């Protein structure tokens, strides 16, 4: 009878997770989504603790305590710019747990494991371990303790695929005969190695896709654990995460004009090599904060295009100040957010929200693109490739076909940029050479600060 109660608790928990994701579809209900997600997790924990197998609580309490002692400060003190790293690290922990549970299940039950359970167990352990090291590597690259640039060498893909194939081969061998205990550590080691090698060739700019993909793997590993332990709430939660991560990585790679395969098998290095040659000097118009402020002040609609460079320069708060000031002066201000502006999906929105920019000023690409034609000024801060009109016009360009923000359709374009150096794709940006474009050279934060003070001078003068 108790078993039925537990199953109902699990059912309620699974339903809560679904509601949690559903409520994430609007900013007004999103926090409610988090709360019901927490409730769902609490239910899953209570249901589990009620189970008859659990006879000792000592280590559970100790581990819950240590885990909370690490997790709570991490949640409160991580800056928003470090969000991608934090999520990568968190994936690593969750995946490690799944892998360890699988490992222990194997040694407890081998050789009496059915073929189906062994298959699920193999998937759980391999995905768990590769997500563990892969996420740690992603963390290292994002935190810049490891080099960000992709490391590519001859035969890399062959070697990586070979290792993955060997790990899968060992799963098959264990399914055929689960008594081969000696094969298990080899399989685990291969999965750990594959996780490292998978991330080595991937550059910093591709991290949004990779983090989403690791999210998906962590979920699938959990779902596989659900099959091993015959636990439906694990299956539900794992499947939800699996599809979520997969969908997000599809969206990300589409926004970057890359196929999935292309991201995973690191072709970015070649693009950079091919593009560097064309660096002839062409004239650009450069301006200063004073004239720029006058144009901004006279505009009716200003669209600000923030890129990751803005976050690197810590200019979010200054940009918010500028937007406020212009709004007060009767100028309509909108922010245009490209899907890959940042280091993970939706990152720029969080960074701007952190700077107190209200979210109804933030517009996604498809909504804002038709508005550029009506905009008097498009102000680009720290964004590059996502504004390059070559994506629309130049068939030969490596970014051809990539969805871009149509900044060049605005009446005037201002670009805040340190120098003429190309962006991640390594190609010159046609936007900078247009008649209507003014380059504002300088550090994003310093330049926007200047703009703020110039605009406020105009405000006082008037």
């Amino acid at each position, binding site marked *: 009878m108790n078993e039925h109660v537990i199953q109902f608790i699990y059912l309620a928990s699974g339903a809560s997770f679904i509601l949690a*994701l559903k409520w*994430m*579809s609007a*900013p007004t209900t*999103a*926090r409610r989504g*988090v709360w019901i*997600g927490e409730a*769902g*997790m609490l239910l899953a*924990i209570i249901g*589990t*603790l009620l189970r008859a*197998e*659990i006879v*000792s*609580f000592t280590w*559970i309490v100790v*581990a819950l305590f240590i*885990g*909370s002692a*690490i997790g*709570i400060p991490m*949640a409160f003190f991580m800056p928003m710019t470090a969000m991608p790293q934090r*999520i990568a690290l*968190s*994936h690593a922990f*969750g995946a490690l*747990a*799944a892998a*360890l*549970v699988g*490992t*222990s299940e194997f*040694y407890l039950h081998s050789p009496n494991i059915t073929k189906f359970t062994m298959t699920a167990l193999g998937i759980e352990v391999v995905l768990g371990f590769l997500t563990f090291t892969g996420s740690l590597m992603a963390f290292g690259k994002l935190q810049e303790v490891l080099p960000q640039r992709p490391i590519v060498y001859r035969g890399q893909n062959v070697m990586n695929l070979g290792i993955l194939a060997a790990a899968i081969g060992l799963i098959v061998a264990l399914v055929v005969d689960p008594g081969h205990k000696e094969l298990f550590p080899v399989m685990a080691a291969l999965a750990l190695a594959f996780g490292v090698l998978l991330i080595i060739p991937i550059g910093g700019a591709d991290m949004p896709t990779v983090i989403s993909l690791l*999210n998906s793997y962590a979920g699938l590993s959990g*779902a596989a654990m*659900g*099959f*091993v332990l*015959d636990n439906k*709430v694990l*299956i*539900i*939660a794992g*499947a*939800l*995460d699996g599809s*979520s*991560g997969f*969908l*997000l990585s599809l969206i990300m790679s589409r926004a970057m004009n890359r196929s999935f395969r292309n991201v995973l098998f690191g072709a970015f290095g070649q693009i950079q090599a091919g593009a560097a040659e064309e660096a002839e000097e062409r004239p650009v118009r450069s301006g200063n904060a004073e004239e720029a402020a006058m144009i901004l002040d006279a505009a009716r609609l200003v669209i600000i295009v923030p890129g990751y460079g803005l976050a690197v320069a810590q200019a979010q708060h200054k940009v918010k100040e500028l937007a406020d000031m212009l709004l*007060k002066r009767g100028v309509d201000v909108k922010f245009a957010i490209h899907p890959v502006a*940042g280091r*993970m999906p*939706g990152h720029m*929105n*969080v960074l701007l929200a952190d700077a107190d920019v209200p*979210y109804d000023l*933030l517009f996604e690409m498809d909504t804002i693109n038709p508005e550029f034609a009506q905009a008097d000024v498009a102000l680009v801060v720290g964004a590059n490739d996502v504004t390059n009109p070559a994506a629309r016009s130049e068939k030969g360009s490596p970014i051809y076909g990539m969805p871009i923000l149509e900044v060049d359709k605005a009446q005037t374009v201002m670009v805040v940029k340190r120098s003429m150096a190309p962006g991640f794709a390594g190609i010159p940006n046609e936007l900078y050479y247009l008649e209507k474009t003014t380059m504002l050279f300088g550090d994003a934060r310093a330049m926007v600060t200047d703009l703020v003070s110039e605009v406020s001078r105009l405000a006082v003068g008037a």
Partner: protein
Amino acid sequence: MISNIEVGLYVFVLATFLGYEVIRRVPSLLHTPLMSLTNAISGISLVGSLILAGSRRSTLSTILGTIAVTASTINVVGGFLITDRMLRMFRRREPRQPRQQPAEDPKSP
């Protein structure tokens, strides 16, 4: 009579499609909190870890279980708290009034 395995597969397939449909409706504005939330939910491996740590089946499984509970607790606790912290920052413009003072509570994170 269908087996547990088959029921499990049904649940998996249906939940995958449901997840896809639900998540498709999440605007890109909220993709980072979404990912943070699904990350917290993937800490569901806590369930398996708890069983392992508490069932006293062998020393190895208790040790691995304790490590697993610690790791997944970090994932769960950190994930939910930071998602909430992020979402607290998302707010609308005050209902229209020509000049709004920008800094009403500058200290809130």
